[in-house]
């Protein structure tokens, strides 16, 4: 699948085929996609815990429910818990990884980088003060983890899977999975084969980019180029909106299939 088609096809899937297992190979594809995500300082911020629903006891599965994620846990065969590992906030990690980037030609003298700069200046002058601010540490770790999650989700779509991000039942997850305190829980990603139309009857409503993007100053909204919009429609990034009546009929059928509230 082309990248734009995968981005255009991604939906938050809320009805999964409960008994169609997800191949471990496909989960590995997702994890490798996450591992290719952009990351400042080439630091490994993200951590993921892959949990197979059927490996959990019924009591544990029950305890992992939250008010917004109940039926979904029954249906999705795989849960991936994503964390930002705050232990990254160590100047020595940055020193080691930045020097690695200098060595492989990612950070170059053309842009002011050298081993000497890393050793003698950047860590003491920039990294250490930055890492002393808990707000910055939290922001950086979680945003970089979010980038990794995004790539994993697109890879899942490319593999024919459905995905949806959900809140984590923190108390239970901590008790059951015993993740360390310096792992900040971000999201649970439910994974499975969609039981619903993978395109959910059309794309979800999005406001125009001109209401969110500006050029040069905040008084000048981005002006869309109609030809580009048309090209993106042809390439699958921009798709038709939901046919509401058709979708309502599908949702009702799904509710009946799974015994859910109609």
């Amino acid at each position, binding site marked *: 699948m082309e990248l734009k088609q995968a981005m255009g096809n991604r939906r938050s899937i809320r009805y999964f085929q*409960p*008994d169609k297992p997800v191949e471990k190979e496909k989960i590995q594809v997702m994890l490798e996609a996450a591992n290719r995500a952009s990351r400042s300082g080439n630091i490994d911020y993200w951590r993921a815990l892959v949990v197979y629903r059927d490996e959990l006891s019924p009591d544990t599965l029950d305890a992992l429910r939250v*008010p*917004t*994620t*109940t*039926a*979904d846990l*029954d*249906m999705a065969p795989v849960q991936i818990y994503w964390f930002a590992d705050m232990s990254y906030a160590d100047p020595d990690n940055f020193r080691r990884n930045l020097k690695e980037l200098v060595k492989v030609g990612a950070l170059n003298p053309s842009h002011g980088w050298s081993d000497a700069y890393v050793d003698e200046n950047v860590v003491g002058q920039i990294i250490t003060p930055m890492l002393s601010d808990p707000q910055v540490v939290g922001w950086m770790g979680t945003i970089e983890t979010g980038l990794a999650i995004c790539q994993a989700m697109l890879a899942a779509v490319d593999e024919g899977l459905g995905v949806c991000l959900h809140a984590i039942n923190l108390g239970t997850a901590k008790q059951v999975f015993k993740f360390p305190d310096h792992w900040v829980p971000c999201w649970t990603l439910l994974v499975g084969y969609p039981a619903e139309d993978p395109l959910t009857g059309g794309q979800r409503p999005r406001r125009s980019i001109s209401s969110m993007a500006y050029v040069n100053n905040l008084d000048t909204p981005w002006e869309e180029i109609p030809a580009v919009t048309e090209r993106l429609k042809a390439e699958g990034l921009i798709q038709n909106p939901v046919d509401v009546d058709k979708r*309502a009929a599908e949702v009702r059928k799904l509710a009946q*299939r*799974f*015994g*859910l*509230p*109609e």
Partner: protein
Amino acid sequence: MTPEEVAAAPSVGRWFDSARLHSDSEEEKQLRYRLLGDFCEHIGQSPDELVAGLIRTTKAGETAISGKRRAAMDASIDEFVEKSGFTGRDAIVNGNIIRSFLVHNGIFIQGRAWRG
């Protein structure tokens, strides 16, 4: 409560309007009325009281769903389903019919899915 009394409750009308249940067969409608009526008797409240009891007023004067009372209601639904002798798919479906009534009256509540 009789099915007629249940059907006359404003909250039940709201449920049927919102979920577009009016076009269902009479048998299906009666099943819903009976089930909700039985649950109301189990709890000792009318349909309107069920909904109102899950709403609290915040210090700012706004309405909000009480998480504690919702959890208690969820447990009561499960208890009612068990006491009524429903098992398997029927247990899931009938519990979720009651949750559907709450959902369409603005109470965010989810039930389990039948995987069988």
